[in-house]
């Protein structure tokens, strides 16, 4: 075992190793150190720079649909780096849905304030349109 650790377990300051009894007395207790903290056997205490984040309250998901048959799906285009890519993507999605689910209707809407906004008018529009489900994207 390391001699310093052994002395610590015996309650004796490793300062005795230096041959200075006076020093051995002071290091039994936690004392201020030159670096501004306190030390015991080279231990120091520092302040925590991190700040606790507030966790969001949990919100349950809305109940799922039983089927897409005959449903109205609202597609929100977030305009991620511009609206074009998502418009093409949603167009292809609509084609696929038309082919596989009879009576599916889709509405594609570009958010008014871009990818960083919240655009409350979209939420109002979704409600007013009586949409059954929504797809939001495309990020990336």
């Amino acid at each position, binding site marked *: 075992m390391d001699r310093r650790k052994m002395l610590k377990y015996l309650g004796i300051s490793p300062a005795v190793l230096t041959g200075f009894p006076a020093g051995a007395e002071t290091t039994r207790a936690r004392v201020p150190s030159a670096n501004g903290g306190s030390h015991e056997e080279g231990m120091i205490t520092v302040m925590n720079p991190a700040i606790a984040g507030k966790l969001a309250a949990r919100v349950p998901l809305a109940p799922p649909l039983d089927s897409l048959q005959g449903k109205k799906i609202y597609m929100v285009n977030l305009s991620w780096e511009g609206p074009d890519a998502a418009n093409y993507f949603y167009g292809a999605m609509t084609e696929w849905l038309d082919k596989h689910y009879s009576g599916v209707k889709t509405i594609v809407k570009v958010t008014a304030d871009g990818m960083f906004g919240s655009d409350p008018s979209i939420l109002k529009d979704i409600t007013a349109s009586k949409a059954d489900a929504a*797809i939001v994207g495309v990020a990336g």
Partner: protein
Amino acid sequence: MQCKIPAIGVASSNIVHYATGYVAKYQTGMPIRYVSVPFPFTGQPRMVDVGYVTGKDMLTGQPLMTAVVNALTSPLTAEEKVSGAPSEESVEPRLLPPDSEDNLRQLFEAKEWTDFNSIILPTERRVTEMLKGTSHKPDEVIKTINITGGARPLTVEKVAISAVMAGASPEHFPVILALATQAPFGNSTSSMANMVVISGPIRNKLKFNCGTNAMGPYNRANAVVGRAFAMMSKTAGDLRNNVNAWETLGNTMQYNSQTYGENEEALPDGWDPLHVEMGFKPTDNVVSVGTGWSSIASVGASQSIYPTHYLMRDYMSSFCASGSAATVVIDPTVAGLLKDTHGFKTKAQLSEWFSQNIQKTAGSYWGNGVIQSTAVPFALAGLEPYASWKKLPDDALIKPFTNPKAIHVVVAGGKVQTMWFVTDFGIRRGVLIDDWA
């Protein structure tokens, strides 16, 4: 407002990880269902994006549209039905458990609380000493950092911890506190950075470098104040690589956010310091923060065969002009040339000239991703000049710097060469340092 209908997200694989982890934990509280396309989604040819619809969902490996149908129709899990207060609480103790210096350094790096250069460990005594640099109480909340969620209260004490870590002294602390009002630094996949300009008599009192090598690693005040901004941005913003910091390339300018002082003593007659142009008194001490991406140097001295401001104009035409923002950092000798030889009696006249003379093609303007994200919504809403610009052919020329007041001119440097930087940094209104003394 809630619509109370099933909704799913579509995002590329890199975003989904963030959205279902950090965002759900700190922002939405919802385990939103996602389907995922390959990254990158934007900037691809049309056929690639369309092809993703008939491709695979990156999360489940199913055909993407099968995954869409499943996400909208499959029964909710118990986890998806949870509501109310979070079951756990996020706690950060004021003091860290005692440990050896080596272990603490490793801990700070593991937690990404550093810029990975050596730090001064923030012992309570050092932080207490730093707090003597201000009259503000340690528990005063300067602002709440919520850029990626979490609503973290940035207190005077937390800023003092960052200031100690960065190597600052108590006399720097009011500047750092004023800077904290602008934290955190830019955090965007587009890899932005900041510029910090110190104005007023405090430049000389604290020995900020405004002269030779003003923007280089040759001065303590510039170095530690800029570094403290990075420290507090990372700790208060909880910014961690690939967790909620997603700058694809990152930006070396984030290390000290280009912190420098304006060489106010070398301004030509009639050219006001940056903070005076903002409406502050010359005797006020002010820190101003800009956000941007790019900096282009003159690469050599000014030449009489081609006026300096012409070359600046040419180089600035490559900027995206988001928000009409630009900042030109020029040596005092260049300021002298612009005034005495080319007749710009004020900075404002030079800014106006840039606004009237910088041109780029509509294709180049709309070809920028940030412009697509920020200006296209304006165009679609019919807001001018964006709506008209959107209708132009790609080769039509536009003047994208519509607001000369967003083009700032800062004079710095040591009169060693007639050189300059043109940048796309948009400087916000300055903050009075004296309020934080």
